């Protein structure tokens, strides 16, 4: 039973990240392979605050989200100044720089050894340790994220972002501040990623740079692409499906030496196939 609970918890956390990536890449149209870095920063901040008993879980999550909001906005600003393709390299650069910092700043992030022994989350004084409590916490956070995402997309903000995606110039001509709208989208994406980081740190009780590297960002992109861009359904289906893949693969017993590389191979094939035949993913709109 624990397995399904931890699978659901991890999937819920990745849904929050899916929402974050979807907001940035799908809706605001800003290419990003550095969401895992922001996710990591959120995780390290909450871990640091909890391990040194500076504050309890909820305030730590708020601090982490606020920091990630600022960080994501800072990261996205070049995208607004630099033309599309240049930002691709900047985004790769930001991810690799973040990984270098996570790995080498031993004082702050425990460096390559990672941070073991992160205290579990506590809500209103009650520590949540068992898988049952954790899954409730994460699914609850996921639900909150989805409601927020749904509200945003229904509100004028969502319509504004959809219009910006089609023709920025026309939106500016209609008297709207395009820059502010994009920055708000990046801010929301940062909040989602930061809170997801906090949940991840307390769920695993051990984090190290390998969970926030370039492969993690590419996996996030794959989840959005396969699940479906720009929609709530897409951001939910993607993570649940792709996290199940490794498990499904081990059921069909191909020799374990090949099985491992095969899974990464399938991610690659999925990316190509969906881009060729179904760019809008399972439940999304055209990228």
């Amino acid at each position, binding site marked *: 039973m624990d397995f399904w609970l931890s699978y659901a918890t991890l999937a819920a956390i990745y849904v929050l990240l899916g929402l974050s990536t979807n907001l940035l890449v799908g809706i605001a149209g800003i290419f990003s392979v550095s969401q895992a870095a922001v996710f990591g920063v959120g995780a390290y901040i909450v871990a640091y605050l909890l391990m040194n008993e500076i504050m309890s879980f909820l305030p730590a999550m708020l601090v982490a989200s606020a920091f990630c909001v600022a960080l994501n906005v800072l990261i996205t600003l070049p995208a607004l100044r630099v033309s599309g393709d240049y930002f691709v390299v900047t985004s790769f650069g930001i991810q690799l720089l973040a990984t270098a910092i996570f790995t080498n700043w031993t004082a702050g992030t425990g460096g390559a050894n990672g941070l073991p022994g992160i205290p579990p989350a506590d809500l209103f004084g009650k520590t949540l340790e068992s898988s049952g409590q954790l899954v409730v916490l994460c699914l609850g956070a996921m639900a909150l994220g989805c409601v927020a995402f749904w509200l*945003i997309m229904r*509100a004028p903000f969502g*319509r*504004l972002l959809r219009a910006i995606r089609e023709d920025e110039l026309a*939106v*500016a001509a209609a*008297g709207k*501040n395009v820059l502010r709208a994009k920055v708000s989208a990046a801010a929301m994406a940062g909040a989602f990623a930061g809170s997801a980081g906090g949940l991840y740190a307390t769920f695993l009780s051990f984090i190290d740079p390998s969970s926030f590297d370039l492969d993690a960002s590419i996996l996030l992109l794959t989840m959005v692409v396969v699940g479906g861009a720009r929609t709530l359904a897409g951001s939910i289906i993607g993570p649940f499906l792709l996290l199940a893949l490794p498990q499904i693969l081990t059921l069909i017993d191909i020799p374990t030496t090949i099985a491992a590389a095969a899974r990464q191979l399938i991610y690659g094939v999925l990316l190509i196939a969906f881009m060729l035949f179904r760019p809008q993913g399972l439940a999304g709109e055209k990228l």
Partner: protein
Amino acid sequence: MSEYLSATGLEVSFGGLRALQDCSFTVERGRITCLVGPNGAGKTTIFNVITGFLRPDSGTVSFQGTSLDGMKPQAIVAAGIARTFQNLRLFVDLTALDNVIVALPAQTGEEPLAAIFRPLHVAQAQTKRREEAMRVLDHVGLAARAHDHVRNLSYGEQKLLTVARGLATGAELLLLDEPASGLSAAALDQIMALLRRLQSEGKTLLVVEHNTRVVQQIADEVLFLHQGHLMARGTPEQIISDPALADIYFGGAI
């Protein structure tokens, strides 16, 4: 009383090409002024300068006494100037109603935080905004097509929608970039009637237009632009009968 809209000494050059050369003109409030001239005379460049999309190399633009130099496009729209585009630039995937709602002035709910923490308030504001947009659509005669996607509108209806979008910003000066081009006779009459009606409601229009018949019917005043410079100004009849201008514009044949 300072001029309603005045441009003095505008200079704009792209690399070697001098789009506007010492271009100055004024527009009276409440009148329909047509901007005519051969292709490449700088008509659209003037629109881009007035609406803040393009910063001129030198020269100033002022509206009701306040200078627009250096203002951001959205501030100029807030000051009361809206424009349309020659290639329409409508939001094809959105409905006609949504196209208009996007142009409505700052609404609650355009900030994500408001949308999340005060959803009821935003929902109410939404319905109010929807009614307002419907009124604008009705005003241009598109009420029936409100919920259709722009893709399914006829070219004439799309032209009307661009004007509706300009109106939705609440602007009093509308810069219309070839509103009549490519329209059937019936659609042409419909749009000309709309422009006259807007003028009667106190709007001021600055219209770029090639069709001399349209210019004659609606223009109170005509500005003749050539190679980025104001060559002449006067009533439609004066401009069209002037042989020198005709030479430049029609290559001699009236």
